[in-house]
């Protein structure tokens, strides 16, 4: 995975709804159709890095079955960072598409 893209994906998913670590991994794998697979343990340092930067906040929450899980919530600062990353990504992917998509030279 590209450097920095893990954190973008994490922020995007947490921005949609609060999730815990294992759920996050499964969600990334499911939504990418199995394309994004990484060593699961590397997710936790990334989560804690984002939490230390105050972009997300972790809170222990009890599930209906009595087990506890650490859910992550997006902070206001995290929302701003996500908006910036999203704009950056859209600009980047639009530019890449302009280059890699075939162009009808007759029109040029």
């Amino acid at each position, binding site marked *: 995975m590209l450097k920095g893209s893990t954190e973008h994906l994490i922020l995007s998913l947490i921005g949609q709804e609060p999730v815990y670590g294992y759920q996050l991994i499964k969600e990334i794998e499911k939504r990418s159709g199995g394309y994004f697979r990484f060593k699961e*343990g590397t997710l936790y340092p990334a989560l804690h890095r984002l939490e*230390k930067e105050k972009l997300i906040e972790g809170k222990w929450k009890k599930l209906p079955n009595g087990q506890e899980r*650490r859910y992550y919530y997006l902070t206001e600062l995290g929302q701003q960072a996500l908006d910036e990353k999203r704009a950056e990504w859209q600009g980047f992917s639009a530019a890449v598409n302009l280059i890699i998509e075939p162009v009808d030279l007759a029109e040029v």
Partner: protein
Amino acid sequence: MIPELRRYLTSISLNSRLDPLEDGDVVREMQTHFEDEIEELCEAGLSTREAVDEATRRFGSATDIGREIYEVYSGGTWLQALLAGIPHLLVALTFACHLWRYSWWLILMSLVIVGVTVYAWHRGRPGWFYSWLGYFSMVSLAVAFLVIFVVDHVLAPVVLGNNALWVVVVVYIGVALCLMGYIVARMVRRDWLFTSLMLLPFPVLFLWLVALERDTGLLEYPKQGFIGGDLEVAITFLALGAVSAAFIRLRKRRLKTGVLAAGTLLTLAVIWRFTENGFNPVICFLLAVFLTILVMSPVMLQGRVVRRRGEVEVADSKLPEKV
């Protein structure tokens, strides 16, 4: 809990070298991850042992993950770096402005050092606290000499008899050793690298005393001796301040260790350059290397001593028997 999983989580915990409060949360969170993953793998038809093997394989290297967690929490802010440098800067100021001649300044500085150290101890012993702890130990030594002096010259002849001095010395050494043992034991749970940060000013002060004694007969004429080398002494403590600040800011453990070792060695080399009569270069080099090894000895010992003890501690206390 299955022994393999316990060992795996213990390895992450030891490599992360976190404060017990933070560590408990990090390890517990990973344990919940394994609860989910193992349950899912067992439902898919794997035995518990196979599920644990597969789950730990998917999770990755415990050493790498522990190190990454360490790097997340080990880098301090600029404010924390400044706080780590302040005690060294205070000593540098003391020499640069010749303030060591005034008792009121020494008493005030000692009170500040004791106050800040006690405050930081109760606030969870952040990284910068260990810089202050080194000077706190020096203040304790100075108080010891003062107590011995008072007992020897004032109390002994009148109240305690002739053996009083020895009684005081033995009691003080006993109490001091217990206190230092307690402090080191508390630090061991976190990271012995902080013990090296604490020891940083000791070889510098020691070498300065030896160098100035050789140059100017410090013990006979203390005031002239120190004034002659005040600026140089201040510069070396300023350098220690910079080393401590860099130590707090850096994230990678290897870099922290490197900056401490190189900083100590360079500062000791600078002291040798500053001394007028100069030592025999070979002896000075060997002395500098010996003192640097002394400062770094906690780090070298940690791998051997703490790992075994830490395994028992983590295995016994932090991981409930759920998986």
